[in-house]
């Protein structure tokens, strides 16, 4: 019923530019596109979408505990109203990311949340207060990891 031209154009541009994205980017419904990319290629695809395809607004970054990996979904949008959910993965035993705050300064708070809640290291994140956990939160406890339960907090004696 509704035409998905806008969305199809976006998908086509991405696949044309990066043939490794063939089959990795799909229109889910009107104004929703999902894409997956391996971490090594993440930044170039991200930059292309932001700069060439007008995804110039960052909604948020979702962290996911997927067992062996941490999933990261970067939700970006633009005045065209389409939301692109770009997913990538980093290994749990070495969870390191580079900041995207050079393009989106507002993303700093979203990245700090990944640090506090998952224990992900974000390279290039500027100095600043942690967010959102409190000051004497025990080290090495990351609430949004699936293997963390609230009773661990009391066992470690965190107030």
């Amino acid at each position, binding site marked *: 019923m509704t035409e998905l031209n806008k969305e199809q154009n976006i998908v086509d541009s991405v696949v044309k530019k990066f043939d490794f994205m063939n089959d990795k980017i799909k229109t889910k419904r009107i104004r*929703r596109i999902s894409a997956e990319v391996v971490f090594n290629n993440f930044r170039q695809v991200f930059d292309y979408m932001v700069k060439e395809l007008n995804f110039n607004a960052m909604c948020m970054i979702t962290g996911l505990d997927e067992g062996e990996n941490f999933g990261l979904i970067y939700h970006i949008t633009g005045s065209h109203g389409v939301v692109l959910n770009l997913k990538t993965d980093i290994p749990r035993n070495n969870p390191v990311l580079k900041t995207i705050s050079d393009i989106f300064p507002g993303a700093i708070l979203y990245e700090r949340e990944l640090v506090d809640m998952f224990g992900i290291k974000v390279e290039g994140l500027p100095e600043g207060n942690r967010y959102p956990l409190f000051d004497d939160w025990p080290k090495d406890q990351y609430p949004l990891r699936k293997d963390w339960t609230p009773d661990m907090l009391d066992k470690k004696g965190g107030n």
Partner: protein
Amino acid sequence: MGTIKIPIGPQHPALKEPASFLISLDGERIKGFGMRLGYNHRGIEKAAEARTYIQDIYLIERVCGICSHSHSTAFVQAVEEIAGIEIPKRAKYIRTIMGELERVHSHLLWLGVAAHEVGFDTLLMYTWRDREVVMDLLAAISGNRVNYGMNTFGGVRRDISKEQQADILKAVDILEERTKYYAGIATKETTLIKRLSGVGYISKEDVLKLGTVGPTGRASGMSRDTRKDDPYAAYGDLDFNVITDTHCDVYGRAVVRVFELFETYKMLRQLIKNIPDGEIAVKFPRKVQAGEATSRYEAPRGEDVHYVKANGTDKPERVKLRAPTLANLPSVEKMLEDNNLADVPITIAAIDPCFSCTDRSIKVNNATTGRSETLSWGVLRAQSIEWYKREHGIDFTELNKKYQIRGN
């Protein structure tokens, strides 16, 4: 030399929510601004994974007590999308009506709070009195003044009767008159205009770069409004304008909110006129099939984003949300750069901060005098009102008297 650190601790009588800010002063100009958030962090996302979807509606509704319907709707929309279930049109209209009524109460609340910050307390009394018209409506329709519990998966839990619809139209007429009155004050009273103009300035480029949302961004000419860009519920059927302004300052933010109220009244009339008959909810499975969805909602403060991942059980795998205030806080640093300490209360209040949406006291370091001070928010506000009287001759005593409510 040293610095004055003025910690304004996490207890703010005006803001009503805790946060903590650190300001570096050079003389009276602000050179640095830091934020310490998290006082309201309640661990909602983690708790949501341990509860069923239905329980989570009640949890998510209480992320923020002013835009509770916004969070609730954004959440149920995401889950409905994963389940592939289309809700009845009447339910979409009812959700939209509640959402726009929420916007009215929130914007009127903000007008009062902003007036309070600059010393124009009579306006606080008027706007909060008028707000009670909406609160009564919301209570009559949903059973509660806040946290309406209207949403369920598949639609809404309560209908809006013909009598209630008529009451909404009557209320809209009353509130439109009142809002015209406030628009008059905002455009006529030079004391108010002088006080708010040029304060908390942020350019359109910076607003776009920092990802500012809602009326705060629209006051700088940015035209993002989720209701127009990414229509949800009944917004696709409605005829309305996105209100933007070019002042780029606190005055612009007030103007945008006042004129958004007029658009809301327009929308409410259309919604009541065109609300389709039919069911208010459809059946919904207890377990939600595996999948994910991103839902966006234009809360009174701006874009609210929810992401839900389902795994086939009756509990979500992941719930992530980003409330509008979190998106707007980075812009506060920019706005306060090179401004005066006296501008802090109204500038922060003008982004309509909901620290409980975000999770939030002010320390001031003064490089010139080498001193460090602790001020409570109330003292800072009083000082800022004094400063504006002294340095700029801006005094609300006369305005307060002029608009005083007589008797009871």
